C-alpha cells in the first residue's frame, strides 16, 4: 500500500465510533486537530494531502467500498508511532457515516463537507468519492446540480477554473451550499500533487507506458471520451520531427553531388518545409492551448518517465526546420537564432541529466528507456546546426555534453538492468531511436571538423550497424497499437539516410550511392505508410487521439475490492477492520500491532 502519509481521515469523537477507529490517526492531515477549527482551508489542505483516486463510473455498491477503500486504506498511518500521538489526531472514517446512514447520506456527506458536527468532518476522500460517484453514477440524483456538474469532471485538470473556484470557496468560507464548488475543488487539490515516478510504473504498462493496468484506477472517467485537449499528448510533436527531417533529407538529395543522378528538384524540399512549418505551428498552438487550459495534464505528462523526453521534440523540430531551410528562402541564418533555439534544450537537459546524476526516484538505472535518446539527440542536432552556421565553441560544447551522456545512456540501455522498469520487453518501433544519436553525431562531428573524418565514420558505422540489426528483425515489429509517437521514430531512419548521403559525399562509389538511395527510399516509404495510417486512424477509425490514460494515473494503488464486502456493515466490526488491515499491505502489520494496544 502506498504510504499512509497522504491520507487523513480525521475522526471526531463520537459514541458510534469504536475507540479503535478513534485512535487510528492520520499522518499528516494538517489542521485536523480540532473540529471547531476546521475550516474549508483545513479541509482543503487535508484534501491536498489526502487523495481520492477513484473517479470511476462504477456506480453500484462498489462505491461504498470505494469510499471505504480510499478513506480507510489511505488513512492507515505509516507507523504505529502516529497512532500514539493521537491527542490531537483523530481518525475519520467516512465510511462510518455512510454505513450508518445508508445511501442517502452520500449527499449529506458530500454536502456536509467541512465543519458539520461530529460525523461529518470534512472527509476529503469521502466527499470526492461521493461527488465522483454522484456524477458518474447518476444514481445520486438528489444532488441538485448534478447535470451541471457532469462537465466538471475534468475540472481537476483545468488550470483557471480550478483556481478560480478555489478562491471563491475560500472567500465564501464553509457552508453546505458551497459543497458543490468545494467538491469540484476537491479533485483539484488532490491531483495537483506531484506524482512520484513509481506510480507511473505501477499503474501503467506497455512500451510507451500509456496503457492503464487492469487493477488501476483513473482520476478521470474512462467511459467517456475526454475533451480533445486532454487527449492531445506531447508525442504529437513527433509528427513535426518526422516531417521536418524528411525536408532535410530531400534537400540533401537535391543538393549533394553523389545524388545528382537522381535529378531531384529543390521544390520537394520547399514543399515539405512549408508543410513542416504549418504542422509545427498547428501542433504547437494546440499544445499551448492545452497548457493554458489544462495545465495539470501538462504537468502530469512532464512527470511521466517517457513523455518527458518528448518535451525536447518541439525544439528539435525547430532545429530541423533551420537545418532544412530551402536555399530559395534564405541562405544564412543569424547566429543569435541558434542561441535562442538552444536555450530551452539546455535548460531541459540541465534538469534531466541532473536528475540522472543525483539519484533518487528518477535515476537512470530506474527510468532509462529508448525514448531518452530524444534528450540526447537534441545536443547533436544543435551542434550540427551551430557548426553549419559557422559557430565554433557552442557546437563543441553541446557535442561534448551529448557525447558524455549518450555514452551513459547507451551502456545503461544495452545493459537492460533488472531495476529498469520501463524497457519494452519486446521489439517496438521505439527502438529505432537507437539509430538517431550516432547518425546525427557523425554529421555534427563532420561539420565541426570540416571533413567526414575517422570520428564521424566510427559514429556512422555504429548507426548503420544498429539500423541493420533492427531492420533484420522487422518481423518482430508486430502487434502494436498505433500511436502518434511512431512519427518520432521515423526521424532516425531519415537521419541515417542523410548521414549516408554525407558519407557518400566523402567516399564516392556505387555502393555508397546505392545505399543512400535505398535508405532514403526506406525512410520515405515509412513516412508515407505512417501518413496513410494516421489518416486512416484520424478519419476512418476516428481513434487517433484516444483517452490519454498516462496522465490520469491515480495517486495510490487501489485496494482490491473484494475484501470490502464485509466492511460495509460494521463500523463496530473491528474484526473485519483488522482483517482488512491485514491485507492492506505492509503497513497493515504495523497498524495491526498498534491496534492491538488499543483499548477497544
Amino acid at each position, binding site marked *: 500500500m502506498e504510504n499512509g502519509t497522504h491520507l487523513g481521515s480525521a475522526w471526531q469523537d463520537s459514541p458510534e465510533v469504536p475507540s479503535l477507529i478513534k485512535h487510528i490517526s492520520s*499522518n499528516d492531515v494538517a489542521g485536523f486537530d480540532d473540529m471547531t477549527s476546521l475550516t474549508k482551508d483545513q479541509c482543503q489542505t487535508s484534501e491536498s494531502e489526502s487523495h481520492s483516486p477513484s473517479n470511476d463510473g462504477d456506480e453500484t455498491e462498489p462505491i461504498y467500498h470505494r469510499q471505504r477503500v480510499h478513506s480507510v486504506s489511505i488513512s492507515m498511518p505509516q507507523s504505529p508511532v502516529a497512532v500514539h500521538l493521537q491527542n490531537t489526531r483523530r481518525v475519520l472514517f467516512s465510511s462510518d457515516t455512510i454505513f450508518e446512514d445508508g445511501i442517502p447520506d452520500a449527499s449529506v456527506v458530500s454536502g456536509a463537507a467541512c465543519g458539520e458536527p461530529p460525523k461529518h468532518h470534512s472527509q476529503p476522500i469521502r466527499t470526492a468519492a461521493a461527488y465522483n460517484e454522484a456524477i458518474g453514477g447518476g444514481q445520486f440524483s438528489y444532488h441538485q446540480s448534478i447535470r451541471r456538474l457532469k462537465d466538471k469532471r475534468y475540472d481537476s485538470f483545468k488550470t483557471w477554473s480550478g483556481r478560480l473556484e478555489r478562491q471563491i470557496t475560500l472567500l465564501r468560507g464553509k457552508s453546505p451550499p458551497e459543497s458543490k464548488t468545494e467538491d469540484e475543488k476537491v479533485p483539484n487539490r488532490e491531483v495537483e500533487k506531484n506524482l512520484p515516478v513509481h506510480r507511473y510504473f505501477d499503474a501503467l504498462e506497455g512500451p510507451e507506458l500509456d496503457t492503464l493496468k487492469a487493477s488501476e484506477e483513473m482520476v478521470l472517467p474512462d467511459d467517456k471520451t475526454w475533451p480533445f485537449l486532454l487527449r492531445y499528448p506531447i508525442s504529437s510533436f513527433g509528427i513535426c520531427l518526422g516531417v521536418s527531417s524528411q525536408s532535410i533529407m530531400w534537400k540533401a538529395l537535391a543538393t549533394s553531388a553523389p545524388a545528382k543522378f537522381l535529378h531531384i528538384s529543390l521544390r520537394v524540399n520547399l514543399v515539405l518545409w512549408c508543410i513542416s512549418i504549418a504542422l509545427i505551428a498547428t501542433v504547437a498552438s494546440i499544445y499551448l492551448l492545452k497548457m493554458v487550459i489544462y495545465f495539470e495534464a501538462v504537468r502530469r505528462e512532464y512527470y511521466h518517465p517517457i513523455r518527458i523526453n518528448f518535451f525536447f521534440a518541439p525544439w528539435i523540430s525547430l532545429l530541423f526546420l533551420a537545418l532544412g531551410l530551402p536555399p530559395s528562402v534564405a541562405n544564412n541564418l543569424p547566429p543569435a537564432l541558434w542561441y535562442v533555439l538552444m536555450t530551452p534544450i539546455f535548460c531541459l537537459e540541465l534538469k534531466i541529466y541532473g536528475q540522472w546524476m*543525483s539519484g533518487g526516484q528518477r535515476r537512470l538505472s530506474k527510468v532509462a528507456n529508448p525514448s531518452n535518446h530524444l534528450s540526447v539527440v537534441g545536443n547533436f542536432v544543435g551542434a550540427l546546426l551551430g557548426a553549419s552556421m559557422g559557430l565554433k565553441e557552442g557546437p563543441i*560544447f553541446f557535442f*561534448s555534453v551529448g557525447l558524455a551522456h549518450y555514452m*551513459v545512456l547507451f551502456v545503461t540501455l544495452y545493459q537492460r538492468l533488472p531495476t529498469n522498469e520501463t524497457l519494452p520487453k519486446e521489439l517496438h518501433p521505439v527502438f529505432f531511436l537507437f539509430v538517431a544519436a550516432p547518425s546525427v553525431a557523425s554529421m555534427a562531428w563532420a561539420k565541426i571538423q570540416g571533413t567526414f573524418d575517422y570520428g564521424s565514420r566510427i559514429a556512422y558505422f555504429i548507426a548503420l550497424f544498429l539500423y541493420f540489426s533492427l531492420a533484420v528483425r522487422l518481423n518482430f515489429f508486430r502487434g502494436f497499437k498505433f500511436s502518434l509517437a511512431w512519427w518520432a521514430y521515423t526521424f532516425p531512419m531519415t537521419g541515417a539516410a542523410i548521414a549516408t548521403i554525407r558519407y557518400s559525399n566523402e567516399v564516392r562509389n556505387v555502393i555508397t550511392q546505392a545505399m543512400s538511395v535505398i535508405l532514403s527510399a526506406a525512410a520515405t516509404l515509412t513516412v508515407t505508410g505512417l501518413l496513410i495510417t494516421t489518416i486512416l486512424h484520424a478519419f476512418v477509425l476516428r481513434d487517433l487521439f484516444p483517452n490519454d490514460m498516462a496522465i490520469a494515473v491515480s495517486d495510490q494503488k487501489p485496494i482490491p475490492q473484494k475484501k470490502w464486502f464485509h466492511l460495509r456493515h460494521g463500523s463496530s466490526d473491528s474484526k473485519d477492520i483488522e482483517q482488512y488491515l491485514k491485507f492492506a499491505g505492509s503497513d497493515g502489520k504495523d497498524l495491526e500491532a498498534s491496534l492491538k494496544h488499543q483499548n477497544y
Partner: protein
Amino acid sequence: MDDQNQSQPQIEITIDAPNDTEQPHREPLIIIRRSSSLILTKFHGGHFRISLSLCSQALLWKTLGDPIDDAHAFQRVLSMLPSNAFLFLWSLAFFTLISQSLLYILRCFFRFEMVKNEFFHHVGVNYLFAPWISWLLLLQSSRLIAPTTIYYQVFWCASVLPIVVLDVKIYGQWFTKGPWLLSTMANPASQLSVIGNFVGARAAAQMGWRECALFLFSLGMTHYLVLFVTLYQRLSGSSSLPVMLRPVFFLFIATPSIASLAWESIAGNFDVSSKMLFFLALFLFMSLVCRPALFKRSMRKFNVAWWAYPFPLTVLALAATKYVQEVRGAKAHALMLLLSAVSVLASLALIIITALTSNNIFSQNSQEHSA
C-alpha cells in the same frame, strides 16, 4: 498533524544521521585524554581535502601570474598580482601539506588499525590518493623547481609510484574481486583515483616524459569512462554516499577538468578533445550549481567535507585559463575570470570558516568523514 509530519522525518534523520563514523562498528573509538592522541584519532584521510584545495589554489595563482606573450588586457592585470601573495599561499599550502602528511605518518604508526579500516572503506580508500595528488600539485606550482631538473623527476617518481600501486590494487579490485562490486561501492569520491592518474600524467608531460604521460592518461581515461557511467546510473540510489558528504559531488567537475589539462600537456595545445572535456566539466558545474537542494542538508553544520568544494572549482578555473590561451576572446576571458574568482572566494571563505571553527575539526563531535 504537522508535528506528526515532522516527527516522522525526524525519526528518519536520527536513524540515518551520518554520525556513523568511517570506522566500522568493530572498531570502537577509544577516547583518550591526551589531545595529541585525540588528534591522531580524529585525523583521517578526508582532511587531505584541505591540502588538496590549497595546493591547487597555489597552482592556479601561479598559472594566473605567469607572464604570457600577447596577453589580453585582463591577463596583464592578473600578472600584476603581487608575487608575495603567491609566496604566502604557496608556503601555507606547503606547511599544511607537510603537517598533514606527518600527522598521517604518525597515525600509520600509532593507529594502524584505523588506517586499515580507512583502506577498506569504500569512500575512505579514495582519500589515500589525496596526499600524493597534493604533492604533485605543489610540485607543479613551485617556482623554484623547474620541470627539467632531477629533483622534479625524483619527486615525481616518489609521488606517482604510490598512485600506481594504489591503482593496481583498486582498479584490479573493480573487475576481479567477487563481493566487492563497483556497482554498489562506486561513489563520487572514487573519482579521486582517476584524478590522481591525470595529475601524474600532466606532471610527466611537463617533464617531457611523453610515454609515461600517455600511460597514466589512458589508465585514467579508461577507468573514468567506467566510473562515469556507473556513477550516472546510480544503481544503488543515493545510498552509497552519506548526506554529509554531498559536497563530494563536486568531484564530478574536477575529473574532466583535470583530464582536459592533462591532454593539453600531452597534445601540446588545447585542442578539440581538451575543449570537449572542459565543456563537459563546465556543464556539470552548471548542473550542480542549479541543484542547491542536493547540498542543503550537508550545509547545516561545518565539517571537513566542505573542503571538497574549492578543489574542483580551482581545477575548473585552471582549465579555463588554458582554454583562454587557445581561444582568445572577451567572453572566454570573462568566463575564466568568473571561475577564478569563484574558486578564490571559495578557498578564502573556507580558510576563514576553518580558522574560526578550528576547534571543531578535531573536536569530539566532528564527524569523521572520509566515510
